[in-house]
């Protein structure tokens, strides 16, 4: 493969030491050869980018695919001649689903490997862990997963959905098209579901939903026994009003959850479940026949019928050498982020962090659903929102879609303390939490 793992310098030094052994301890010569490639590298060597995704531990199941997609994108770009006339070289590290290790690996990528940008992280807690590192060392992180918002950093570019690009449109769809009046918000107990549900709770109440018509329930990671919770939802849904479940249940726990729904006979036509963390990859491990009609909200589905998506899927299948592998939303986010970075580097004419960060704002690249995504001054991008229903073949069929693209809203308009905040990283404001009411940077 066209990348080197973690320690690209090592084989070099080893070869050198062997050679110097042969030369009988010619230390001077060794020092000379050691120095010259370093100078060469600085001038016309490859541009390095970091790939920071867990390849072992609990998150490996989701993140390994994103590592592969990054390698594919780099390979494709190098076929086109790289960027600025230089090859791109990915440096892959494994933070092993261990949040503090993410920060260590990020530091290593930036200070030791001298990467120009990093593509990585999945969970919000891993992003929060690397954020201070990127700000301290002034580097660039592209974060490809849908998240809870309430953040904007100078050094992070958020290519996944903010809540207003996923959760709010999904609720709107259920409210208008399915006449849903009662809401069960089920989630795994950590920061993303809790913040998303807080936003949804405020949004629903603003729309006139009574507090009695909202049920909030949290379960631990990997929850397996869903009997009583599904029964509770069933009871909640028997109040004579159309009921829906909004699920921020994450990871493994979804499989027993959907199995229990099917076993207790809850059909999508009675109580639909709209999920924000269930994509093609997650459905690959489930028999989806009983789930037909349950919903998911994303900015991309593999089933989207556009020429650019067809091309992407066939490139992916060719790269991974498995025609049955699925594609999903965070993969598209990496495609968009990588192409934006290439465009910004071309525009800036350098890979230095500050010019590229400035150049990134306003960069527009095609997304895979047939539109154009633009990087906004708040470091979030514009994306279309798609609502899809699960099909028997494990794919989603798009049943609704926003007419245009939606701008990612970093500070939710529905939460106290964040509705007055905006982020704008253009000069002269250059602020991630400008309070429009107080008229100054720095939050409340």
């Amino acid at each position, binding site marked *: 493969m066209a990348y080197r793992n973690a320690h690209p310098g090592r084989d070099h030094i080893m070869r050198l030491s062997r050679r110097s052994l042969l030369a009988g301890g010619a230390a001077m010569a060794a020092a000379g050869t050691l120095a010259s490639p370093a100078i060469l590298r600085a001038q016309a060597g490859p541009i390095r980018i970091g790939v920071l995704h867990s390849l*072992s531990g*609990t998150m*490996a*199941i989701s993140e*390994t695919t994103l590592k592969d997609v990054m390698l594919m994108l780099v390979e494709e770009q190098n076929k086109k001649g790289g960027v600025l006339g230089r090859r791109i070289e990915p440096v892959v590290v494994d933070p092993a689903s261990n949040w503090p290790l993410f920060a260590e690996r990020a530091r290593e990528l930036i200070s030791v490997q001298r990467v120009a940008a990093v593509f990585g992280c999945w969970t919000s807690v891993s992003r929060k862990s690397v954020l201070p590192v990127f700000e301290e060392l002034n580097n660039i992180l592209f974060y490809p997963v849908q998240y809870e918002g309430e953040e904007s950093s100078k050094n992070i570019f958020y290519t996944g959905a903010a809540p207003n690009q996923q959760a709010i449109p999904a609720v709107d769809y259920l409210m208008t*098209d*399915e*006449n849903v*009046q009662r809401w069960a918000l089920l989630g795994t*107990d950590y920061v993303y579901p809790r913040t998303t549900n807080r936003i949804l709770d405020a949004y629903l109440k603003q729309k006139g939903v009574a507090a009695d018509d909202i049920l909030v*329930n*949290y*379960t*631990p990671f*990997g*929850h*397996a*026994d869903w*009997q*009583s*919770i599904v*029964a*509770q939802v*069933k*009871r909640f*849904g*028997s*109040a*004579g*009003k*159309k009921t829906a479940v909004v699920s921020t249940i994450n990871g*493994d726990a979804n*499989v*027993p959850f959907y*199995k*229990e729904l*099917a*076993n*207790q*006979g809850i059909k*999508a*036509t*009675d109580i*639909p479940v709209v999920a924000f963390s269930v994509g093609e990859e997650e459905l*690959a*491990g*489930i*028999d989806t026949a009983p789930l037909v*009609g349950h919903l998911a909200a994303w900015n991309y589905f593999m089933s989207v019928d556009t020429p650019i998506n067809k091309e992407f899927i066939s490139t992916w299948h060719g790269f991974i050498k498995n025609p049955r592998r699925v594609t999903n939303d965070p993969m598209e986010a990496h495609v968009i982020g990588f192409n934006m970075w290439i465009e910004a580097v071309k525009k800036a004419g350098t890979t230095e962090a500050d010019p590229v960060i400035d150049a990134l704002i306003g960069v527009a690249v095609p997304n895979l659903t047939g539109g154009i995504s633009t990087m906004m001054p708040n470091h979030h991008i514009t994306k279309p929102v798609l609502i899809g*229903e699960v099909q*028997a073949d494990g794919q989603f*069929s798009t*049943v609704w879609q926003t007419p245009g693209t939606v701008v990612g809203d970093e500070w939710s308009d529905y939460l106290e303390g964040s509705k007055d905040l905006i982020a704008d990283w253009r000069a002269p404001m250059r602020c991630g939490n400008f309070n429009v009411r107080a008229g100054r940077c720095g939050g409340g």
Partner: protein
Amino acid sequence: MVARWGTAGHSPGVPSLCTAGRAVRRIVATLAILLGLAAPAAAQGGVQGEAIRALATTNFDELARAVERLALSGEPNALGIVEALRDGTLLFRQADRAVFWRDAQGRMRDAATGEVAEGVAPAALRPLRVNNRVRRAIDATIGALSLSNPDPRVRLAAAERVFRSRDPDAIPALDAQLARETEARVRHAMEAARAAAVLGSAMADDAKLAAVALIARRGDLEARNLLAGLAGVSEAVAQAAAAGVAAIDRRQAMLRIVQDIYYGISLGSVLLLAAIGLAVTFGTMGVINMAHGEMVMLGAYTTFVVQEAMRRNAPWLLDWSLAFAVPLAFLVSALAGALVERLIIRFLYGRPLETLLATFGLSLVLQQAVRTIFGPNNREVGNPSWMSGAFELGGVLVTWNRLWIIVFSMIVLFGLMLVLRRTAFGLAMRAVTQNRRMAGSMGIRTPWVDCMTFALGSGVAGLAGVALSQIDNVSPNLGQSYIIDSFMVVVFGGVGNLWGTLVAAMTLGIVNKLLEPIAGAVLGKIVVLLLLVLFIQRKPRGLFPLKGRAVES
């Protein structure tokens, strides 16, 4: 033509709107046909063919209405067409809005005539896609059209569908079928369906009052949903409905306790299965085996491998794959257990801390080994048909998979007791547990008994893996999530006592499930753990401590 009122057709809250909507819709439909709005010049057939051609749309609202219209059109093929739409085998041609369905042989048939259509280019056809609203219309239509089906099961399902759709148009068909229905269960369901349809109609109050009373007697959550959502009715009917809801609530409150206890027993049986192997290794041998969960995982992966092998070689046996998986999982885990005992644990007897660390390391090794062989992703283990779905028992919903796991856990428990009490090996094992030196003096080969005991405990863990593969994810982390619970059960029940393990597992399961609706799943677990800690403070040896001189020493 895309108007919002069309969507109100099946929303429960607005029956009066709904009937009005239907009437308007019919007028609109007739108008559309009369004016030839939707009819292309090359239309063959009359009004009936038109009802089919109306399906050729990509707009879900229009499609849902077209399905409802088809039900009323008297089209002879209507049921087959709607079923094809549900199964995704209905296609249409954009150019002339002709509708085709693909039969089992992959041939295209004209939907109107049912004849094989020759020379249809598949590239010109697009499948008709449906969403939940269309699915509801499909359900209602299939229900209304199959009320007179010769198969009583189909009639029962049809009645249930009409009950949900509350379609007043189905009343004549229901009346006709009720007049000659002989099957009591079907009759019952049809009366309920008719009552639901009456509540959705514009009939007089006395008919509605009778319907409310009938539905209230049904007493389940769907009946509650219907009565609670009744709107636009007279004062008397609304009062009767409120009283009906109150009666159902009283009944459901009773059922809820029964249901929660059943869920508790079900959780308890899972805990029991996970812990029972540990009760043997930890309970009788005193080995703190942190790799116990991985023995469970091995059992689950064995199930996966057996199922995959069958899927490839003997698909007709797939429903019985678990019967093959059970002995194999036992053997695989037992063999792994025997190896672990011979290679690691026997060197560490009497050194609990080192055993703990060594077995913890072993658990990581086993996890990574499985991850390397099978990949990090979850593996799909299918549920056989006899373990899917649920049935109702006196108003309590019992899911088959949980029921079978309760039965299986009891079989394993009593099977294990039988081995311990009635076999020579069991006798030797108990002798070694109670007094190792004396047993050795009596000629029992204690190292061999140790090895076999550990293998037995691990094998039972493998059996648990088969059961867990049916309700949880088969992943390398499967065992980790059960190891703490297993130790909790064994310590709570009293070390070395299988009855104690049973009582402890059931108690923890039931307490957990009773707390869950009140405190939530996260807090519930914490409360259970706290209660357990307090209990162990009072009774350090658990519920049923072993007594005797051997224990004291």
